[in-house]
């Protein structure tokens, strides 16, 4: 065992990269759930984003266009879920699961001719001087744009939910759709927009996997990242900054585990692999332990079908 071989600076830097896809997907899902909709299709939207972003980046040679395409693709796929649950009033859990399965299959179909191709490289921001600062430089200033974009997105979602009228309406719809409806807000329309935002974020997260983190396209490459994103939203008790914390924790576990193994520490891999889910269960238990707490956190109308009676 030689822990000194682990370089904490590099560890934190690669932890930030590992956390970015699930952070993007989770902050999108947070907005969806804040609007009172539970979309379990995150995994499906992520992988569709992964392949569409990859395909467009390869065809056009521009990673930026790839990310835009991924966001659009995720949003389009989420419209299917929106149509089923908001217009046809189908069960949200079943529709979400169907979306995941559909996305996995569809992405494999689209991706058949894209296996074994290298995507165009995404440039890293290299701010001279700043990225040369010892310790802080590699952690804060040596990443690609998407890492910063994800953090900015967290801040934006937090600010919008907390300080703006838009955020207030969104929360009202998620807490009590009947009341929001009575006040004249278009519950269904707002929810559809939230679902599309969630889809776009999940698509971006997927594209981050296929364009930057791996970077290549392989079938089923999200490998459960969408489910981790769902767990993070609960873990964060629907608070944006805690989503960031959760993503670093959950994303960090894998990176940390490989680093520990390489350093010769003998920790059974299975324990670390299940730890994020254990923490989520723990958080769920703590949250439900008192009525006041749970009322403060989970959106009251989460997963409930809204049917306008007039």
């Amino acid at each position, binding site marked *: 065992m030689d822990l000194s*071989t682990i370089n904490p600076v590099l560890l934190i830097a690669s932890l930030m990269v590992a956390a970015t896809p699930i952070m993007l997907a989770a902050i999108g899902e947070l907005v969806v759930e804040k609007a009172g909709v539970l979309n379990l299709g995150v995994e499906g939207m992520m992988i569709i984003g992964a392949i569409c972003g990859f395909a467009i980046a390869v065809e056009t040679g521009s990673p930026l266009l790839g990310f835009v395409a991924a966001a659009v693709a995720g949003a389009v796929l989420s419209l299917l879920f929106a149509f089923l649950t908001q217009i046809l009033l189908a069960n949200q859990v079943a529709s979400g699961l169907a979306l995941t399965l559909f996305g996995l299959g569809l992405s494999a179909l689209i991706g058949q001719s894209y296996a074994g191709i290298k995507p165009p490289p995404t440039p890293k921001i290299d701010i001279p001087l700043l990225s040369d600062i010892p310790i802080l430089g590699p952690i804060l200033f040596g990443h690609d744009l998407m890492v910063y974009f994800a953090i900015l997105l967290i801040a934006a979602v937090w600010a919008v939910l907390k300080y703006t009228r838009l955020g207030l309406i969104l929360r009202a719809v998620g807490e009590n759709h009947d009341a929001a409806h009575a006040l004249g807000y278009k519950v269904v329309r707002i929810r559809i927009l939230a679902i599309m935002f969630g889809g776009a974020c999940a698509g971006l997260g997927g594209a981050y996997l296929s364009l930057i*983190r791996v970077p*290549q396209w392989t079938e089923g490459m*999200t490998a459960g990242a969408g489910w981790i994103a769902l767990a993070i939203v609960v873990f964060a008790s629907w608070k944006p900054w805690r989503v960031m914390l959760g993503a670093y924790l959950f994303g960090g576990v894998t990176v940390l585990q490989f680093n520990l*193994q390489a350093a010769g520490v003998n920790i059974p891999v299975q324990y670390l692999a299940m730890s994020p889910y254990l923490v989520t269960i723990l958080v769920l238990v703590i949250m439900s332990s008192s009525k006041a707490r749970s009322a403060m956190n989970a959106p009251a109308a989460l997963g409930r079908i809204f049917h306008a009676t007039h």
Partner: protein
Amino acid sequence: MVSFKSILTGAVLALGLSTAAFAEEKLKVGFIYVGPTGDFGWTYQHDQGRQAIEKELGDAVETSFVESVPEGADAERVLTQMALSGTKLIYATSFGYMDAVQNVAAKFPDVRFEHATGYKQADNVATYSARFYQGRAVIGTIAGRMTKTNKIGYIASFPIPEVIRGINSAYIHAKKVNPDVEFKVVWVYTWFDPAKEADAATAMIEQGVDVIMQHTDSPAAMTIAEEKGIYAFGQASDMSKFGPHAQLTAIIDNWGPYYIERTKAVMDGTWASGNTWDGMKEGMVVLAPFSDALPDDVKAEAQALADSMAAGTYHPFTGPLNKQDGSAWLADGEVADDGTLAGMDFYVEGIEGDIPK
């Protein structure tokens, strides 16, 4: 006399029947794969073997495949379906299909099964595998020569004999040419998960590893090695297009010749069950062209080692060798037997860390 006559008639009749059968229908050959054919590793190579059959035997055969079949109940369903649809020879190309193959083979005695890397045979089930550890010996030698940090990373999948054998073989030969070499083994518990494989590669590189080997199926680690400017070895397939500078060589699984031979055997009726474990000598394990990054003397050394194994004059597990705990395993000049190799569950002396249980 009568019995002789009847046998003769029977034989002639059978011959006539079988030629007639050949004239009107092709031999159907089926493959089931554990991953997608586009994994550019393990499954990709099996599919290359399938295509080799088609190329060699042309109109006499008709091949089909089912990809990404999970090991377990699904495999049994797919195998049954294949057998029911008239497939007479089925290649099951993953270790975990073993019991499914046994079950289905018992129900369809006239269908021949070939199971890769398994150990259970039957009258109509043969097993086959390749001596990948010979390739590991060569890449171990190259890694030992090329590392500057003396740290070699090894992305391992599951702690099974096949994988442990590879680690041992690579380590023994790296150590032989570079006594200071140190192996960092990371277990990822998957055959195929590009994100995990990439993370494992990144973690090792951050700890000073400058040559990476893998026993997983995707080229993700190769992509990372290329990006970080270090060296790596292709696994199962030539991965140079993912790492044109990074790949030093690759261990290529060359199933084509075996597949052609066995398919022909079914066609002319000489197929028999058995266990095949072929290596460089038979051409089942092949090396990709050496990279230009290798100095000429290292190229020559690696080639000489490969040649000696192909000629059968050298065995990668030749004593004196001790087990990790220091106890004696092979005496000077003694060669490991296939039984021990097939069930290998220990590291050789010098490797740090424990094999996970």
